[in-house]
């Protein structure tokens, strides 16, 4: 298992952060699995992914902003992950995600939304891409929409 890490050499300071220093990175990814993945396993993967994105952007273990990932099979069948503190990932499945007919998924849409203070959009994008690169080492391929 690969450890998901990405290093940023400089952390933000109070002088860096003002209202105008917040950057937003939003991107939609289409993930196709080479073989069916259980929803529970997928949730674990994405939990690691969101922490990997958050780790280099965190300050004292907290996110100066909010990182959200929505894994979506349909408008009704989705799982939502939220990160504001590194050690605590909030996972909220939709009713349909829990009660859906199949417990396995072949592909999924991932909406990634990162809004943090103190880092540029370019840096955030690098962090997200590096985290995804490791995430996809295994049996997954990624297609940008």
């Amino acid at each position, binding site marked *: 298992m690969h450890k998901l890490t990405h290093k940023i050499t400089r952390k*933000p300071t*109070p002088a860096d*952060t*003002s*209202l*105008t220093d*917040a*950057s*937003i990175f*939003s991107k*939609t990814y289409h993930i196709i699995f080479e073989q069916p993945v259980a929803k529970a396993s997928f949730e674990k993967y994405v939990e690691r992914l969101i922490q990997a994105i958050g780790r280099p952007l965190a*300050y*004292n273990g*907290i*996110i*100066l*902003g*909010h990182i*959200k990932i*929505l894994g*979506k099979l349909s*408008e*009704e069948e*989705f799982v*939502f992950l*939220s*990160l*504001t*503190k590194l050690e*605590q990932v*909030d996972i*909220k499945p*939709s*009713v*349909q995600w829990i009660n859906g007919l199949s417990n396995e998924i072949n592909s999924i849409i991932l*909406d990634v*939304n990162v*809004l943090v*203070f*103190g880092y540029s959009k370019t840096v955030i994008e690098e962090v997200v891409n590096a985290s995804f690169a490791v995430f996809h080492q295994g049996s997954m391929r990624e297609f940008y929409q």
Partner: protein
Amino acid sequence: MRILLFGGFLGSGKTTTILQIAKYITENKHETVALIENEIGEAGIDDKLLADSGLQVKPLFGGCVCCQITSDLITAVREINETIKPDWLIIEMTGVAIPGNIAKLINEYCNFYTGLKTITIVDMARWPELKEMLEPLVTSQLEKTDFVIINKVDIAGADREEIINDIKGFVSDVPIKVASAANQLPLAVIEEVIDFA
């Protein structure tokens, strides 16, 4: 139409709080609720969580942080008042909005409401760091608000009394409640939020 305007820093628990309050209004008071979801980002995420609970949601997205989408917000409030005519309109502001400023705009351009209350949610689990790094923003969110919920008491550290007292120092004379929306808001808090007496 009564308006509840929810503000508070990114990830402070606004959506979780709103879900419980909207559910209480529809199920216990049997009154109608419309929601405006004001989110930064190209893809809406929070609106899906709200819609999953059977609520009618009007999403407003902004691709950049500096854009407060205020004109769209005013248009949406007017449209909902003229078409849906709900008993309650709940507005979730972006995590970088200043509730007092938005309330002023609504007062100016949407004064057809029968009641308006601003509620600021504070994430006490991140308060020391947010105050250290973003004090102008997080303290201005506490100014000119009508009600404060200090949230995430369940995951706050041992210094929680100190944090609560610190937050209280930035709030003027309005009700302040300490709660955990993730573990369900106390009924008394919900009832106080929707009380316009």
